[in-house]
């Protein structure tokens, strides 16, 4: 074949254009999926938030494309073509350095997002998402409005549910720690409050729990369990101050059927081990307390609960190993760790 400039130029152009016709022009004519019933147009505020999302390149770490196999992401609804009907530009994304955000709406309440953008390490100490503290005021509010509408109508209704639940949580928080815990306990299933702890409060468990606490909880609940982590400023209700929930040393995991806690009668650690388990597993909807369902396996949740109870709420450690030297050493450690922060 003799190659001339004409052959090259014409051949290259024609091939390219015909493939472009097949690969983009034809799809843009025949591929016009109607919006799915779950999809609604964005409001002006959400569009403004989307603009912030685009400008700050969130798409480089967050996809918006749930697949049927992405068990942990979104609410288990795989993305449909019609879900994108109002998107311009598309934000499908090609990397998941962070979680998929296609069903993000209502996964966290607004104040969680507020603290998270200030610095993601506040709410998730291990995160490597950049701090977006420079997105301030109206811009951040718009961005959060956009995130809360992801997931279409379902996402919006989840977000609204969070807002409704928050009203009560704030009310009881303001009534003081005792009533707050009583209210929170009243929202938990009774069986769970009385759930016996399969994992004794042993030294090993507490040590493992400490690592987990620092990695997952300290940003909100504070290193000393006093609820004064850096995220506190942004959260309402603020994170639980465990040190207020004082304990008399009674074993909280004794099964009591039909458990009902009344803080006026009882000075025991009001938060039972079963309650911690449940709350860590599912979060407290309406408050910033997130769910750790997909992140912490069952044993780890018991461990972190044991640490919280032992370090901040006065639970007794169980001498499980029977080795005296270890216990002696432990005594030293626990004394140091138990020093209470100033009231």
């Amino acid at each position, binding site marked *: 074949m003799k190659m001339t400039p004409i052959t090259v130029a014409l051949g290259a152009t024609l091939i390219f254009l015909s493939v472009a016709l097949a690969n983009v022009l034809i799809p843009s004519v025949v591929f016009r999926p109607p919006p799915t019933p779950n999809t609604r*147009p964005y409001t002006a505020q959400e569009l403004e938030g989307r603009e912030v999302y*685009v400008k700050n390149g969130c798409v480089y770490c967050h996809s918006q494309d749930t697949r049927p196999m992405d068990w942990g992401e979104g609410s288990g609804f795989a993305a449909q073509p019609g*879900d*994108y009907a109002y998107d311009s530009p598309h934000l499908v994304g090609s990397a998941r350095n962070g979680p998929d955000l296609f069903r993000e709406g209502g996964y966290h309440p607004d104040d969680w997002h507020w603290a998270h953008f200030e610095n993601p390490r506040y709410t998730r100490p291990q995160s*490597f998402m950049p701090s977006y503290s420079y997105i301030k005021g109206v811009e951040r509010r718009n961005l959060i409005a956009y995130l809360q509408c992801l997931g279409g109508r379902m996402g919006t209704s989840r977000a609204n549910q969070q807002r409704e639940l928050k009203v009560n949580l704030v009310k009881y928080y303001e009534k003081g720690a005792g009533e707050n815990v009583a209210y929170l306990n009243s929202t938990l299933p009774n069986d769970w409050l009385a759930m016996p702890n399969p994992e004794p409060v042993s030294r090993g468990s507490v040590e493992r729990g400490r690592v987990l606490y620092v990695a997952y909880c300290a940003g909100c609940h504070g290193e000393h369990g006093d609820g004064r982590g850096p995220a506190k400023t942004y959260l309402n209700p603020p994170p639980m101050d465990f040190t207020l929930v004082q304990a008399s040393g009674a074993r909280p995991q004794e099964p009591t059927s039909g458990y009902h806690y009344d803080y006026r009668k009882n000075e025991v650690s009001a938060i039972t081990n079963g309650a911690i388990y449940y709350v860590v597993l599912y979060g407290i909807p309406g408050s910033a307390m997130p769910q750790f369902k997909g992140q912490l396996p069952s044993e780890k949740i018991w461990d972190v609960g044991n640490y919280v109870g032992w370090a901040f709420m006065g639970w007794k450690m169980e001498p499980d190993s029977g080795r005296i030297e270890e216990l002696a050493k432990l005594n030293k450690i626990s004394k140091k760790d138990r020093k209470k922060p100033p009231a």
Partner: protein
Amino acid sequence: MSDTTYPAARVSFWERLDRPDSAALFGLISGAVWFAIGVIYGLTMSNELTTPDIFAGIPQLVFSRLRPAHVNMMLFGFLSTAFYGAWYFIVPRLCKTPLRSNRAANILLILWNLTIAVGTIALMNGDTQGKEYTEYPWYIDWPVEILLIVNAVIIFQTIAARVEPKLYVSLWYIGGSVIWIALMYCIGSVMWHPFTTYLGSDGHTHILWSNNASSLPAGVSNFQRTGAVTGLDDAVWNWFYGHNVFGLYITTGGIAITYYLVPKLTRRPLYSHLMSLIGFWAIALLYTNTGQHHLLQAPIPNWLKIVSIIGSISLFIPVFAFSTNLFMTMRGQWGQMLENTPLRFVLTGAFFYLAASFQGTIQSFMAVNRFVHFTQWTVAHAHLALLGAFGFIASGATLYMVPQIVRKPIWSRNFADVQYWLMLVGINGFFWALTAAGLAQASAWVTLGEQVTKAYPVVKPYFFLRSAFGGMIVVGVWMQLINVIQTVRQPAPRKDMDRYLSLSDLHEFAAPAGILDDPPVR
């Protein structure tokens, strides 16, 4: 620039732009400078992933704004200018006629560099179209598109004026590349839609003049942002371009340089004309089809996915045609790789190209793609192809061509060798670290069904490794910049220069048609 035929004092600015090969030199040096800046961006981002708060609160330096700046700088700053420089060097030599014209090419490069600099600042300020590889805002898109067209005109004018009747394979690829990029850039950036528009409550389409969306009234619909269409279709447009910009611009441009440099440096004729023919037409026909393999995990129509998978698999035809052709040219000559540094760069690049394409074919299988998609594996692949293959080829071209143009020996051969090894070890470590990170993420998500958030303590160590190996690459790239600048700044050429030039005798070369000579000086 040392051309001693011009007494320095009387040279006007325009005359300087007319000097033979001045545009080539300009392009190659710009490429080296962009390369050196771009890797700093990369290293900064890498460190931000391990220590996220180093630049906390500075909008211009946040990871997600540096990323588009880095990617586009590498693509349109480094690789583009280096390739233009190399093309301006190759085309006149293969056509045996001066570039038409050096002045136009120089002006083009000045404007191009300005555009990319402004574009980078725009991206760091958050002024972006938000789609991968087409991030430049419309006021950058238009200059880029115009300059791309001018570039095509320069190349084709030179080819049309050629003295050598035969069209060497490099020229096909260069001609193809300049046409394809001009065509696809305007498709990818949806350039006919430069403004953000919406349908107001009055039923008319309005332009959103202010870039600040807070001027949006309530009740808008049909929102269409600058440089985008609406709906999932936008992703299809995006990735049609997003793949072709590599396949039909960077790949073909780099192949052109390889096809020129390998026979030239080894003084061996190209193995097979037929194979180059097959490779060229197959790449044109197949690469164009593969864009949608980036969307295999998104709900685009299945037929599009199938077309792209078939395209991706059949890509082994041009890839193997090219590689075989090249390696057969090298047969019996491999020892030269040890002595000749530019050749070593180019051939290593060719190997990486083969590896990246092989990997690409594998990861476009549905079963593999659902596993590795969204993970760092993709980032490893992208760097293997762009840095490993075409970064190396561009470096080789720079290290060979700059001394040729200024007619001075390379300033330090040791520098070039150390640079080679730093970059080689760097890209290998980088690649394997990210591949391992990607596999760790993939097995956590897909095999164990874990949440994305659970896997990041696992990938952190790999991010540290990436920073370490990235640091080696940065050092190598800066050594290249120093080497190039020092080469140009050296005192006037020495008599015994030929001894130092990587290839001394340009005329002795017996190419298939003896076409690889210097252009006649005007």
